[in-house]
């Protein structure tokens, strides 16, 4: 989900899904709706307009869920910090959510896949308990 990012991370997420990196061979699959997802990938610093949509997307996803924050913007606002039109970072909007951070501007596709693996490990741990 793009919450006001510059597209840099989004194209790297798609690159991670396409044949060179082929995330699907690890069982990572893109779904069309947050209602079918276990992990939601967020990019961007969360603009004012998107803050309420971020919350709604998060609420639509069934439990247990993990947020994968891709890129530096989602961690601290990145180059856009201090801007007047940001409500982010994601931490501030969803304080109760479990976040896995993938730093970088933008991170490499390998790093994104690693982040999903981390999220999977977390979800498996939750399910065991």
């Amino acid at each position, binding site marked *: *989900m*793009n*919450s*006001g*990012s*510059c*597209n*840099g*991370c*989004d*194209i*790297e997420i*798609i*690159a991670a899904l*396409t*044949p*060179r990196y082929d995330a699907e061979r690890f069982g990572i699959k893109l779904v*069309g*709706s947050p209602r079918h997802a276990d992990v939601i990938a967020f990019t*961007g*610093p969360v*603009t*004012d*307009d*998107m803050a*309420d*949509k971020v919350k*709604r*997307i998060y609420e639509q996803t069934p439990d247990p869920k993990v947020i994968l924050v891709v890129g530096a913007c989602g961690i601290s606002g*990145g*180059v*856009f910090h*201090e*801007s*007047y*039109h*940001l409500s982010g970072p994601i931490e501030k909007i969803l304080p109760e959510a479990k976040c896995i951070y993938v730093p970088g*501007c*933008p991170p*490499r596709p390998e790093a994104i896949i690693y982040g999903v693996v981390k999220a999977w490990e977390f979800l498996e741990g939750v399910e065991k308990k």
Partner: protein
Amino acid sequence: MKYEIPIGPLHPALKEPIMIKCTIEGERIVDVDVIASQNHRGVEWIGMNRNNPVQSIYLAERICGICNFCHPSCLVIAVEEITGIEVPERAQYIRVIQGELERIHSHLLWAGVAAHELGFDSLLHYVWMVREKVMDILELVNGNRVTKSIIMYGGVRRDIKDEHIPKLRKMVEYYREGFNKIAKLFLEDKTIKMRTRNIGILTKEDAMKLATAGPTTRASGVKKDVRQDMPYYAYPDFEVRAVTPDILTGETVGDTYDRIVVRLLEVKQSLEIIEKALDEMPSGDILSEPKIIKIINQVKKSEGEAIGRHEAPRGEDIHYVKLKEGFEYLYAWKVRAPTYINILSWRPMLLDMQIADIPIVAASIDPCLSCTNRVTIVKNGKEKIITGDELHKLSIQKTRRLLR
């Protein structure tokens, strides 16, 4: 009976947040409205209030992650014009190569997205696999796959070394060989032809009236290209000509199919430019002033205004910059991204089309909303829409309260 279908701001068919409101009658679209600003991050404000001019280059890069060379390039052209910073000739050539590499990667990216919008996912995967080759070259030359951070006032930050050149030539060869296959897949495939021929037509008159830019306008037969009309960098040496679809197909319709043709031909053109640039690249410095502090001081001392224009993959990108003596930041900075004007062409394109055509027609102008939404779009209806959103929010809250 008329219905209103809102698409977006978050929708699997759209890669970025924007809202298209279509009024439909049966399957026919009778009215289209576009509501933007979900992606507004206040980039211009940051450039005018927080960043020094050198930091603003990297900020401009992050206006858009896909065309991350054209925005800093426009800013740099404008500031160089005001301050009179000289650019060595080798740097001009490297800038041309960078710009063309970006065009190749962006057009291939778009081709994949277009295939995806048509439901032809194996083609998306094929094109993106082919695209990885240019990403490798970008990584080799710039050190990063996406954001390049290569341009600087008075030149470029990294040289194209001798050992890079054979690899660049190999890439050009690779795409030359692969070009025919991609062109065949896109232009001769029956499904793609059915879904794109005579769909989303933008007539030449409409294209002129709406002042569209880039492949969108060239596909309608308007010969407009900044590289041809007002060459910058080393482009005067290359004699770039605007690409129109009649070169390949013999006629100009202005539909989605023509926009695919133009983009494919532009990839071919970019390969030629890169090859010629590698042949003719002079030796010498790549930066006229390596000390950044000196550049910052020079920018601070300058006064004036200028416009930087660059032919981005999506069309003409314009930055207006004003500097004031003794002022630490850019005194004024206005960005006009190509999608900002191209987006208006959605209305003439979508009218009388079917709902199922919305994704491919919307994608056919290659919208880059993170570029566009830095500009605050003030619309008469905006206030009403916000209220609608708030009402919706309130209603959700009330439902939740009642459920408790």
